[in-house]
């Protein structure tokens, strides 16, 4: 035996030597059993029903045309959200500026673009060439230097991205503005008292603090945009949803191809959720006494804890068996 057995146990407080019996939770077990059965039924239904046609799903998930469509969906999402939030930030700044004209323009923009359905706006952009078939560059109301055909200047992909971005901007503006409003007014006052230039007050003092409020809602918007891009199928752009339809009208396998689209939308939103977690964590600097652990850190910590607990148990049993002798 490695542990030297005490010859005579020291007199200890009696209660602290008693064994702890954990409380029992019988209903928790019942609930677990019910959920397990339901889950098994669902998985069974997914596997055994031939109508899901999993082999076809597997075949099309990495099909070249589908991958190309996923790429376009990603591009449209990034352009829509990226341009949308840039324009949205400008609109938010206009809205909180002291100029009544800028305020009014911003307000009107948000009013119109939030009121009109996205699908309708997209059709307008798609048919812009009917309204203005040539766009001319030059002095406003004066002579123009050159003109470009609307169709060449704004190809369908650009029209779709623009439509998504302009629509998104109206919502983003309000999200960014709510972020600005969430920052304590004392911060602006302190920055002003320190003589910090106006643009730096906004970008270096207010915006980083506003991000804490902006990010969760913005994350929602990005996820919404991933799925929202499916609306541009009406412009016959081969993004994910449109492409899937093209394939199943050709081969008639509707359900498996809808599953393919489902799979990719899930993948995209999962990636975005992970990204959002780390962005939020970055902007949480200084807002809490300690940052929340990343999932990796959490796994590591659990492993160390379990190991330590096992180690303790081993030592304890050795001590007990030693003491019994």
């Amino acid at each position, binding site marked *: 035996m490695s542990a030297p057995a005490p010859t005579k146990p020291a007199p200890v407080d009696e209660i602290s030597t008693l064994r702890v019996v954990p409380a029992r939770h019988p209903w928790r077990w019942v609930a677990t059993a019910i959920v397990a059965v339901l889950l098994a039924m669902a998985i069974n239904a997914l596997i055994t029903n031939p109508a899901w046609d999993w082999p076809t799903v597997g075949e099309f998930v990495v099909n070249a045309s589908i991958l190309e469509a996923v790429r376009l969906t990603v591009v449209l999402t990034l352009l829509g959200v990226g341009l949308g939030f840039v324009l949205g930030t400008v609109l938010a700044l206009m809205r909180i500026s002291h100029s009544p004209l800028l305020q009014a323009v911003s307000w009107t923009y948000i009013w119109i673009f939030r009121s009109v359905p996205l699908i309708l706006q997209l059709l307008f952009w798609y048919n812009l060439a009917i309204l203005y078939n040539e766009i001319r560059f030059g002095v406003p109301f004066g002579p123009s230097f050159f003109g470009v055909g609307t169709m060449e200047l704004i190809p369908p992909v650009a029209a779709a991205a623009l439509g998504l971005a302009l629509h998104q901007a109206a919502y983003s503006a309000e999200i960014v503005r709510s972020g600005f409003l969430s920052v*304590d007014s*004392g*911060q602006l*006052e*302190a*920055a*002003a*008292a*320190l*003589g*910090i*230039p*106006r643009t*730096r007050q906004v970008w*270096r*003092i207010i915006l*980083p*603090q506003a991000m804490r409020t902006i990010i969760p809602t913005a994350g929602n918007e990005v996820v919404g945009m991933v799925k929202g891009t499916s609306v541009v199928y009406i412009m016959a752009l081969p993004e994910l949803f449109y492409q899937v339809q093209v394939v199943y009208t050709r081969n008639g396998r509707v359900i498996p191809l809808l599953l393919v689209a489902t799979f990719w939308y899930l993948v995209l939103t999962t990636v975005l959720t992970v990204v959002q977690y780390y962005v939020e964590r970055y*902007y949480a*600097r*200084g*807002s*809490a*006494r300690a940052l929340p652990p990343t999932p990796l850190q959490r796994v590591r910590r659990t492993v160390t804890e379990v190991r330590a607990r096992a180690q303790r148990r081993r030592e304890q049993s050795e001590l007990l068996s030693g003491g019994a002798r």
Partner: protein
Amino acid sequence: MVRVRGVHKSYGALEVLKGVDLDVRTGEVAVVLGPSGSGKSTLLRSINHLEKVDRGYVSVGGELVGYRRAGTRLHELKEREILKQRTQIGFVFQSFNLFPHLTALENVAYAPVASQGRPRRDVLPLARSLLERVGVGDKADAYPRQLSGGQQQRVAIARALALQPRLVLFDEPTSALDPELVGEVLDVMRDLARSGTTMIVVSHEIGFAREVADTVVFMDDGRIVEQGPPSEVLGAPRHERTKAFLAKVL
């Protein structure tokens, strides 16, 4: 150094300052006392143009604050010029207003870089020595929320000093602190006063006023009722209102 003449300020129908005259010489410490609502904070905030006055003027170091004189007219300065003037005037807030997303060191170092365009590598040693000076040198990398109220206020004082101002204004710097933390902030302010910094302090700390102030100013209802050395204003007040106020707080 500071000259305030005939300053009036109203918020709507409420007249907060009803003609205030005040002079503070270089290296002097003026402590402004008075009941709440007497206009002390508004006066302080108008000295660095956080509040625009309706009538009268303020000058610091012989320079008009917020305006430029051209012949018989006063031209309002552009925001950029006002911001530049403010770099000469430090301001310490009651609620600290440190930037929560920056560490203590970054809080102190940011304004000289952003406002005065000084190179970061020159400012960082200065910021460190200022944190040392106010006794929080070991907290340079802590974020404000990880600090106690007293430590935060001392960082805020270091931040105000980083611009190397000619004048530092304190707006009730100890009012938001737990009683046992007041002393550490007053110690820092006492050291500053001894080193010859020109200071105007709005405060309720009578003891500090008696010990450190060159001039004590008593305000009530938007006017300065009485001003003079602490021995006179605190020791032998002439006005009934001053007497009544001191009887209540002492």
